């Protein structure tokens, strides 16, 4: 009965979403106070209905209800509880339900947190969100319903891919999707503003927290996915320019541009068209990414089971949402009045450069990912566009971006001269040159430059804080007082930019990596990367649904014992799959990474990696997200409009 309740709740949510869309848009159009006031309630109702629906699916999974086809295909009695729960979103139908749930959470959040918004704008935003939800839920109900039943129910489920039974991967979808779907809110704001025909500074201020929140989640989601690949796939790779990875990178790039562009709308009422287009574009890329992954058009390790019929439905949904919003853009954007003239060298100019570079990188990723199917369709040619292409084309665009990142925040608005600004950050530039020079001794030119760039970014990001607190130029107490008076967003931005530098240093650290593959029997010792590795033991270690072999490896550095590592190899009997469980030992400056391979004649294949600065790749990403989160706590974002007077009647904008 619970699954039926879930199905009903899903249908109810779809109806509520439709109502939300109609009531919101129509109410705002007619300036009907009651209709506009009803919209938030509908949004919260939709969220509650979806919560019930998702809860029903989780209940069915936890109670091993194999009469639900989705649970029978993806779960099994022997699966640990945590993975039964996380398994509900680890398949196509469940992930669509998750999408819908998060979209409804966004709507509910706008209802609750958006009380300061003018009611017409809020109603329109909720209306657009409702319309999008409705389309998605309709897709879920008709082509991807997780509540379909099978009768008679099988005795046990077919279990899930053992590769997905992993904490990192279990939590990667919800965080990633929050990022993806969260950009629906800036999208809705953009469409609402285009319908209204007006974008002003206040709009910029309202949009930014939503864009920033989604961006932070997306950054974490991508980092988690990359980290999972690193420790799960077993050869130390963490980014493959795989089409599905690219599909998550594209909205991240335009989302970063959006977060920055919205600042200019807020401060200077300029770059409105850029910002609106970026808001529409980011969510469009999220949606398109969903379509591509599930359509079978792309060659990717991540591809879900492919069904072209589903692809057609999503394509229709995309046509409506993206086509509709871009048509509205084409019609209304010319009318947007722009204020704020600025010189090319100015903070606005730097942000325009930022937009151009990020969008160019995004264009490269889009074109590179889509070229193979397009070449096949239009020219009948089969070509591959792999990592070598992306590495060759993205790097030249990223370099000016890294250089400008530290300088941009230092430039004044409207008009600036470059030289005085760079002089403010002379110490960061000097440090960067020194680090680069030092590095060329041990490694090749490119990594050395990368380390220099990372130094420049990390130190340069704090140049603004140093400037504004007059650090080292006035007594420390005075600097501290100034720091307390600084808007938090300045600190947040500095931290976020520094995070990028940390990630860059982590990537550059690969130049110092070492690895060794050996065939070892118990008792053998090897040296690699400055460490001594000894195979102590090799034994069986079976688990609930697998048999395994575990090796015990003893690690020493210059004679100093560092500890034991236990790489293993698991054989999942039900799925006929073998996975390797990599042993990683980290001190946050380097990862020791040991992989156990096949065994033959009493000898086991072992791989020893020393990955220098690898943890910084993901630490940097989390620092970026943290910087974004810190910026969100800025008072200025919350004190946007005067608080509502305590009266029952309301003047509509």
């Amino acid at each position, binding site marked *: 009965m619970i699954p039926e309740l879930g199905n009903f709740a899903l249908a109810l949510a779809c109806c509520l979403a439709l109502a939300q869309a109609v009531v919101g848009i129509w109410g705002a159009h007619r300036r009907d106070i009651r209709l506009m006031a009803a919209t938030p309630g509908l949004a919260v109702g939709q969220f509650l209905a979806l919560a019930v629906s998702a809860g029903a699916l989780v209940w069915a999974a936890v109670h091993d209800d194999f009469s639900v086809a989705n649970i029978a295909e993806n779960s099994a009695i022997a699966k640990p509880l945590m993975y039964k729960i996380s398994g509900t979103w680890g398949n196509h139908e469940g992930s669509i339900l998750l999408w819908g749930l998060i979209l409804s959470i966004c709507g509910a959040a706008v209802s609750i947190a958006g009380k300061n918004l003018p009611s017409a704008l809020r109603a329109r935003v909720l209306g657009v969100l409702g319309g999008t939800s409705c389309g998605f839920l309709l897709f879920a109900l008709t082509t991807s319903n997780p509540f379909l039943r099978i009768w008679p129910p099988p005795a046990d489920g077919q279990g899930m891919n053992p*590769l997905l039974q992993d904490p990192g991967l279990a939590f990667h979808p919800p965080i990633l999707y929050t990022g993806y779907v969260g950009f629906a809110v800036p999208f809705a704001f953009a469409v609402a503003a285009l319908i209204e025909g007006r974008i002003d500074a206040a709009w910029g201020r309202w949009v930014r927290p939503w864009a920033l929140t989604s961006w932070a989640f997306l950054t974490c989601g991508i980092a988690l996915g990359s980290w999972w690949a690193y420790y799960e796939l077993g*050869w130390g790779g963490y980014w493959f320019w795989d089409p599905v990875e690219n599909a998550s990178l594209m909205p991240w790039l335009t989302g970063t541009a959006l977060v920055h562009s919205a600042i200019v709308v807020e401060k200077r009422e300029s770059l409105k068209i*850029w910002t609106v287009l970026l808001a529409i574009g980011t969510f469009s890329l999220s949606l398109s990414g969903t379509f591509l992954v599930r359509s079978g058009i792309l060659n990717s*390790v991540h591809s879900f089971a492919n069904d*072209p019929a589903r692809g057609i439905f999503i394509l229709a949904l995309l046509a409506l949402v993206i086509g509709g919003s871009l048509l509205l853009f084409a019609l209304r954007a010319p009318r947007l009045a722009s204020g704020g003239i600025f010189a090319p060298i100015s903070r606005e100019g730097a942000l325009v450069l930022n937009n151009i570079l990020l969008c160019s990188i995004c264009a490269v990723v889009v074109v*590179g990912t889509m070229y193979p199917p397009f070449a096949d369709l239009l020219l009948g040619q089969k070509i591959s566009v792999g990592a070598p292409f992306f590495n060759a*084309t993205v790097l030249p665009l990223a370099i000016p971006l890294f250089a400008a990142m530290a300088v941009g925040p230092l430039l004044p608005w409207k008009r600036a001269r470059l030289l005085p600004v760079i002089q403010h950050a002379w110490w960061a530039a000097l440090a960067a040159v020194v680090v680069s020079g030092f590095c060329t001794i041990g490694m090749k030119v490119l990594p050395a430059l990368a380390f220099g760039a990372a130094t420049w970014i990390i130190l340069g990001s704090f140049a603004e804080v140093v400037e504004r607190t007059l650090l080292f130029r006035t007594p420390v107490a005075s600097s501290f007082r100034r720091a307390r008076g600084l808007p938090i967003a300045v600190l947040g931005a500095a931290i976020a930019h520094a995070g990028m530098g940390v990630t860059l240093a982590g990537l550059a650290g690969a130049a110092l990596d070492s690895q060794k593959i050996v*065939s070892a029997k118990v008792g053998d010792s090897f040296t690699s990367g400055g460490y001594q590795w000894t195979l102590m033991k090799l034994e069986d270690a079976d688990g609930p649904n697998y048999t395994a072999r575990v090796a015990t490896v003893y690690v020493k550095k210059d004679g100093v014992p560092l500890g034991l590592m236990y790489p293993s190899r698991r054989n999942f009997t039900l799925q006929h799959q*073998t996975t390797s469980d990599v042993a990683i030992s980290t001190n946050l400056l380097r990862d020791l990474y040991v992989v156990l391979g096949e065994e033959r004649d009493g000898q086991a294949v072992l791989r020893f990696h020393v990955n220098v600065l690898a943890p910084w790749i993901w630490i940097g990403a989390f620092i970026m997200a943290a910087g974004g989160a810190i910026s969100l706590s800025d008072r200025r974002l919350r004190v946007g409009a005067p608080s509502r007077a305590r009266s029952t009647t309301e003047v509509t904008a």
Partner: protein
Amino acid sequence: MNIKAARMTSASLGVFLLACTVAPAAFAVADPKEMLPDPKQEARAEAVGSQLRCLVCQNESIEDSNADLAKDLRAIVRQRIVAGDSNQQIMDWMVARYGNFVRLRPPLMASTVLLWATPVLGLLFGGLAAFYGRRRFGTPPAPLTTAEQARLRELTGAP
């Protein structure tokens, strides 16, 4: 969906899964016996191999894949390096048999000009958009004439 398509897709998928041992579950080159004794040659082999696509896997190079076919291709790359072939000759050898699909770095030819030009085109288009946008609002208002300044003083009652 007609029968041909059904057999094709499930057939291909079935075969490729068998050949590929489902790529994400496996891990990369894990047999030290495969490696060439000369580290320089081995490094060259890995560099060439990382440019060659594993044909039965999704988006991996032959160096990263555990599939049977990838293993054979790795062996061939190493044999040819030992035999004295240049990197270009090895790539040509592979392309002669599998077409440009096997190259992870798409060659520059008439059909890929647009692909390789994307960074430049992106910058160009962005730059033009920015420039064009500025031109609309580029000119600041002219400074006030003396007559206008006098009128302004008059209106504001300034001395």
